[in-house]
Every structure is written in C-alpha cells, then in structure tokens.
C-alpha cells in the first residue's frame, strides 16, 4: 500500500501525517507513508486545499485532517 500525505507544512498537514502513521502502525499493515510538499505533485492529484491524503493513487480526503478511524477503515479492508 502506498500512502501519500500532501501538504506544504502547515500544522494541520503535520497532524494528518501523524494520524496516518499511527493508523498504519495500529493496523499493522505493510504500507509506505510519504509526505509530499511539492506543489507540482499536489497539482497532479488536483488537490487545492491541504492537507490531503492519497491512497494508492486515489485521493481520499482533502482540506481536513482525517480521523484515525477513517484511515483505519481505508487500509484494513
């Protein structure tokens, strides 16, 4: 599984990355978590409001920090 957290580095983006990492650790799944701060890459996903989370190329959430339960639901199915 390939998870990308998109955000230039505002506090909420860091929070989103933390939530995702915690969820991955809790679920015990094999996943790479990467923080993307490059605007060009963000645009390729069509993301305009940050933070955003992309799972295997699919944008799951934009403009808000997902809850840990949400992330768990995406990765444990």
């Amino acid at each position, binding site marked *: 599984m390939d998870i990308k957290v998109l*955000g230039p580095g505002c506090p909420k983006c860091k929070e989103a990355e933390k939530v995702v990492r915690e969820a991955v650790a809790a679920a015990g799944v094999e996943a790479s978590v990467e923080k993307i701060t490059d605007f060009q890459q963000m*645009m*390729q996903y069509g993301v*305009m*409001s940050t933070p955003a989370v992309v799972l295997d190329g699919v944008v799951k959430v934009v403009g808000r920090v997902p809850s840990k339960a949400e992330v768990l639901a995406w990765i444990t199915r």
Partner: protein
Amino acid sequence: MKSQCCARPRIASPARGLSLVEWGIGFLALLVWGLVYFRLQGFAAWLTVSVFGLDPASRLGSAVEFFLYDTPKVLLLLALVVFGVGVVRSFFTPERTRRLLAGRREAVGNVLAAGLGTVTPFCSCSAVPLFLGFVTAGVPLGVTFSFLISAPMVNEIAVVLLYGLLGWKVAALYVGTGLTVAIAAGWVIGRLRLESHVEDWVRAIRTGEGPAEEERTFRQRVFYGLDAVRDILGKVWIYVVAGIAVGAGIHGYVPEGVLAGIMGKGAWWSVPAAVAIGIPMYSNAAGIVPVVQALLEKGAALGTVLAFMMSVIALSLPEVVILRKVLKPRLIAVFVAVVGLGILLVGYLFNALL
C-alpha cells in the same frame, strides 16, 4: 458527485441528521450562551469594583473593566459566528468555487470571486495550491487575485470583532470597502495582462482530475461547524486576549484626543503612513481590531485606522514570500502596489466623508 462504489455495502451507515438529545444539547448551549452574553457588562463591573476593589473611573480600573468585559464578549461572539459560518462553509469547497469561477469573464468573475472569497475555507498555507488550482483550471488571473485578496481580508473574524467592538456600521463599511478593493484590484491586475509574469513552471503544470467530492450530511455539516469553532478559537484566542490587553492599556492610560494630531483627519500624510507601516506587518483581524478601537477612541480618524487594519490583514511579508513561489517579482510588486493603492483610497474616502 455520487460516490462510484456500489458493490460493497456501506459499513454501519452513519446517522444523517441529529438525534433528539443532540438537538437538546444544542438548544441548551444556545440558552447558556445568551444568558452569559447579556450579563457580561454587569459581571465585569462587579468583578472590577467588588472583587478587585478598583475605582472604575481610575486609569487602572477602566483598563481592567474594559479588558474583563471585551475579552469574553468577543470570544462568545466569535464562537457563535464561527459555528454558523463553518456550517455555511461546508457548502463551499475550493473545488466547487473553482468550478463556479472557471471560464468566467472578467468583471462578473471579479465580483463573484470576491464574494466567494469570504465564504470559501481559506488559510494562508493553502494560498499557493489554491492559486495553482484556479489558474490551471482556466480562472482568469485577475479573477484569481480578487479571490486571494478578499479571502483573508473579509472574513467572519474581522466582521465579528468590528461588530462587537465598533458596531454594525463600521463592520458593514469594512465589508463593503474590502470587497470593493478586492474586486477593483483584481480587475486592474487582469487588465494589465501580466500572465507572463506567473512563474514558468506553473503554466507547464498539468492538473489531475481532482478528488470526487464528498457528499456531506446535515450532521456532518454541524460537526464541521463545531470543528471550525475549536480550530479557529484555539488559534485566535491568544490574539484576541493580546489585542484587547493592548487596547485596554490605551483605553486606560492614553489621554483623550492625543492622537488627533498625528492620526486625525487634519494630518493628510497619516493615511499613506498607516498603509506603509501596515503592509509588511502581519496580524489577523482578532489582534488588530481591539487596537483599532482604542485608537479611534483617542482621536484617530476612521479612514486612517481602517486603512491601517486592511493593510495589516490583506498584505504581509510572509504572504509575499509564499506567493513568490508562483509569481515573478514584477507581478508581486504590481499586486502589492495595486492593493495598497486601493486601501489608500479607502482611507482618504472615509476621512473625507465622515
């Protein structure tokens, strides 16, 4: 947009509306809010006189009473309005705003963009992705600027503070002139044909399709509003307290009329000076309005302080640094100059009219 999946049944479909208990809690919260809000003045006076033993006519006493009354009042107003605006905002995602603006002509586009700027969720850290998303989707440059100018300047925090501390007339004046500056400045920037002064890599960008929109339920919107309250009050309360503390100090200790000479109507140079000082400074509305109120009280002219407030909120050094990533220096200079000039005119206009 509907969600694309259907094969998989939804896991534990969440409630769409609010339960009776939740409605009850909401109603009760509103009742408590009202009871507290309308008794604040008496409570602040009682605290100052009976608990702290201060004379409300003394300098320290009047500063303390001012602080004790204004701080909770502004925070309470903010909580209520931020919640309401939060619910409204859940209807205006940046994606939807972009769709509304894409391919719009100038003029109509500028007006629409300035209006949408006030309700679309915006934080300075997403200014760049928003700019990219707008421009690459075919929103004209000038229209994009109208949005970028109005979004930080005309927002609920500024309106609540102005209303709470200076009354609805000043709040309405600020909103009206703020929108006008955003519309006019964006239009002028559009007319100047500066598209080539956007960084080259921006124009080479290919945007992805963008995420499928989440359909929100009423319940989610209410919780979105509550989140906004927690989020914004958590960020802003320190500015409110600091701003009101400075304002209270001025209120209690600076003699009446002392500012009339330097910030009054008679001093023609005070408006450009206020704008020049305000542009590099950054504070959000919460920190600046209490200071503005105190300055007014001591004889500063309304146009001068409004111009100061607008330039502090609308333009700042950090914002320029962020925008430099996507704009060439010339376009940034034009942006700052056009907006600064607009604010200057607002300042003079009010000093002349009122």
